[in-house]
């Protein structure tokens, strides 16, 4: 009979009763503390329901509000009563009414009997752990906290601010080093009685009663003064979310809890009947032991915190709609934007699709419709090609497209004819890889069969749009991977940039050279065409320098770099 249980209860007394009976059945003496907020009638009924148990006491009732001294005072009283009334107790285990023993109590008793001098209490210095709530860590111990964080947040915050402004600092008594840790501990009689009968206890109590969340630091700090052997971990499995609130266990956690290596879990949802039925049985009815795998529990709960604080990058949905700069990723995957390539090369899109494993779309932001790959009118996610729908919210269109096709690299064509509203979104997106052959929009005009005056005004319009776009791409806000060539530059040596772009797209590609090159449009007379525009007073400058007589129609195949061929 080495373990005594101190149990703090405040709600779900029915469950607390069941758990108390379970402890008692294994012969553990109990001291129960019920919160003052439990109505006297309910408390009396609770007391009566446990009358038949042999070693049970009820300690003086305190008000136990989260983060306040009351919890420590309650633990102190109950622990004193335990030590005084049950002299055979060697270890005192602090538990709550919503704790559930995961392993047979006899196992716990044996475990502790084998470690008679060990105190199990999680205890770490503030500098070493990242547990901060409300932006307070070391200040927990150097400021005063007379107000409730839950009920009087405004006063709480103001008083903290005031103390910071006045640079008030409390002195920590006795040269102690403050430690923090889980409030659920298991201490030996020696350590606990030393803490409770310390001559300086009044000083310590006075100090800690104004510390914030003293139930996580009082015993944790003082145990360091007296303990012979501290094992800094809690025997109670308790997971906290990002607000410092314990995660709750439900019926569907049954298999998970069976794999815990802890003796007790908290906090259990009071109506999780399957859990209570499964764990509150005698040894005969207990389930077969499974190999402990606490890492799995850790993973599930840390993932939940991550989802709540960082979310899934690139996802915009009903409960995740980040303000600008807080997206941590405007889109969810890398994608490539090509400007001018499909104008300059006759078969650029099918070629790119063959050369990489990516999905290659046409002009997604074209004025007529979103030109999806293979002429589809609807693609992944039931995203429609309607231009009106797309232009209603171009940002959502792009984010949806990339999200819906996750796992498959997307490429699409862009140009000055397209909806330019999306430009900043793409430019600011680190996932975007933008390649521009500036001035290539002139090629379709050159090949077209329109009146020259129309061509001239269209050329002027497109040049202006592209020039604005290029300014965007060169701005200091741009986070995308941007490459810009003038058309003249590009056709001088087209293979090198093409190879670079393709290498960047596809790690899935075999490291071979380009076995096939896209076919460049026939540019005979293009120099003269530009000269004609100039003669009409419209100066096309984005395509670089094209001499009038320059014969551009050299076969691009001859430009293949020898080192690219295996």
């Amino acid at each position: 009979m080495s373990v005594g249980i101190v149990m703090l209860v405040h709600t779900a007394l029915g469950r607390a009763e069941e758990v108390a009976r379970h402890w008692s059945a294994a012969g553990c003496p109990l001291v129960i503390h019920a919160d003052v907020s439990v109505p006297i009638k309910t408390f009396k009924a609770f007391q009566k329901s446990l009358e038949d148990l042999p070693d049970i006491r009820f300690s003086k009732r305190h008000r136990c509000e989260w983060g306040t001294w009351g919890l420590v005072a309650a633990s102190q009283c109950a622990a004193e009563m335990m030590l005084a009334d049950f002299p055979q107790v060697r270890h005192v285990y602090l538990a709550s009414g919503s704790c559930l023993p995961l392993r047979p109590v006899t196992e716990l008793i044996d475990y502790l009997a084998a470690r008679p001098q060990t105190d199990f209490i999680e205890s770490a210095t503030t500098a070493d752990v990242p547990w901060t709530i409300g932006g307070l860590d070391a200040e927990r111990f150097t400021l005063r906290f007379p107000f409730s964080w839950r009920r009087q947040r405004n006063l709480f915050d103001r008083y903290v601010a005031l103390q910071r402004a006045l640079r008030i600092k409390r002195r920590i008594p006795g040269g102690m080093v403050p430690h923090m840790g889980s409030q659920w501990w298991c201490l030996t009689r020696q350590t606990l009685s030393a803490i409770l009968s310390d001559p300086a206890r009044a000083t310590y109590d006075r100090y800690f009663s104004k510390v914030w969340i003293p139930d996580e630091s009082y015993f944790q700090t003082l145990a360091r003064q007296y303990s012979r052997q501290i094992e800094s971990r809690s025997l109670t499995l308790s997971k906290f979310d990002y607000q410092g609130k314990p995660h709750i266990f439900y019926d569907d956690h049954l298999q998970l809890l069976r794999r815990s290596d802890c003796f007790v879990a908290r906090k259990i949802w009071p109506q999780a009947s399957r859990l209570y039925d499964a764990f509150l049985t005698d040894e005969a009815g207990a389930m077969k032991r499974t190999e402990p795998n606490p890492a799995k529990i850790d993973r599930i709960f840390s993932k939940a915190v991550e989802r709540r604080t960082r979310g899934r990058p690139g996802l915009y949905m009903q409960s995740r709609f980040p303000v600008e700069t807080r997206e941590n990723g405007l889109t969810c995957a890398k994608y490539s934007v090509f400007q001018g390539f499909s104008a300059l090369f006759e078969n650029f899109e099918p070629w790119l699709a063959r050369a990489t494993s990516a999905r290659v779309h046409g002009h997604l932001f074209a004025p007529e419709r979103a030109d999806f790959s293979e002429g589809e009118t609807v693609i992944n996610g039931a995203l429609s090609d309607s231009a009106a729908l797309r232009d209603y919210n171009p940002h959502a269109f792009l984010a949806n497209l990339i999200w819906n096709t996750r796992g498959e690299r997307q490429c699409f064509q862009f140009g000055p004819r397209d909806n330019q509203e999306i430009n900043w979104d793409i430019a600011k997106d680190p996932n975007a890889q933008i390649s521009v052959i500036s001035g290539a929009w002139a090629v379709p005009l050159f090949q077209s069969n329109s009146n020259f005056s129309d061509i001239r005004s269209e050329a002027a319009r497109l040049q202006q749009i592209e020039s604005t776009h290029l300014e965007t791409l060169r701005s200091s806000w741009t986070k995308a991977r941007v490459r810009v060539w003038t058309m003249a530059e590009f056709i001088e040596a087209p293979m090198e940039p093409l190879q670079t772009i393709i290498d960047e797209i596809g790690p899935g590609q075999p490291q071979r050279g380009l076995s096939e090159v896209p076919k460049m449009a026939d540019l005979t007379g293009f120099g003269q065409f530009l000269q004609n525009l100039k003669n009409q007073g419209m100066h096309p400058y984005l395509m670089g320098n094209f001499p009038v007589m320059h014969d551009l129609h050299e076969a691009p195949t001859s430009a293949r770099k020898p080192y690219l061929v295996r």
Partner: protein
Amino acid sequence: MSIVQSYRMRLRRRHAKARSLRKGLSLRPVADRTAQIKPGGVLLFSTLRNEHVRLPYFLDYYRNMGIDHFLIVDNDSTDGSGDYLIEQPDVSLWHTSASYKNARFGVDWLNGLQAKYGHDHWTLVVDPDELFVYPFCDTRPIRALTDWLDGSNVRSFGAMLLDMYPKGRLDAVPYRRGQDPIEIASWFDPGNYLIQKNRKFGNLWIQGGPRGRVFFPDTPIKAPALNKIPLVKWNRRYAYVSSTHMLLPRGLNLVYDEWGGESASGVLLHTKFLDTFTQKAEEEMERKQHYRASLEYKAYMENMSDQPELWCKWSEKYINWRQLEILGLMSKGNWA
């Protein structure tokens, strides 16, 4: 937010409360079992008209979820909905023959009932064709969710409307009483939703889905709103402003995270598109009691006559809430 603005919002809320009192006068209690309501019970509020065929499944679905009491307004049904509901032991029923439109599509009636019976309860406001889905709904009753929300100091919970539709013509498979409508309307659009923030009320405005894709591809701004906040820890000072899309005070509309994380959220499976739909659309066109003079129904009727299929090859077949979570339509947030 200036004082003037917030005062305006207060006036607006007061106005909504006053309206609900006035419009509530037309409600006549038919079966008042509200004495059964216990503190902490989760209550469901609904208003309906001629939904008899859907009711058995609807009530069972929410009973299994752990709803403790149903408070329903019958807007002059002629198909026996009222008689059916009177006999249900956990339903309190009110009748009205007043105009649905003038009661702001039922909102005024329910605001009044919620203030009277829903104070300090978690209240779920859904239509008979909406099935609420939340994280872990297959293993945890709704009480687990509301307890967790209470513990996290969260007062409202968002659930986007997800339009469900069958493969093939809407009228190909008739819906039988008591049948799970998802067996027929088992498809949905997984990734074509458009979101904007409503700066005035602070809620998100979500559009798109099959209705955006098929009925409003040229005028997307007219597509119906899909954002909803159906589950609220009600206080008699609260008021729904426009359907369950938004509430006052505005803090209740912040069911989403703006700093990159994900709040927990659910989905309302909207099973409007069954064989009953065509008949309903015809009737509603005549009554003109729906939003924007039944513009939605008009668009449906025009499209429905020549292109009755909402299904496309990228439609997704519904499996469970986890599928919706993976697709990014809802989120567990930090509930695990």
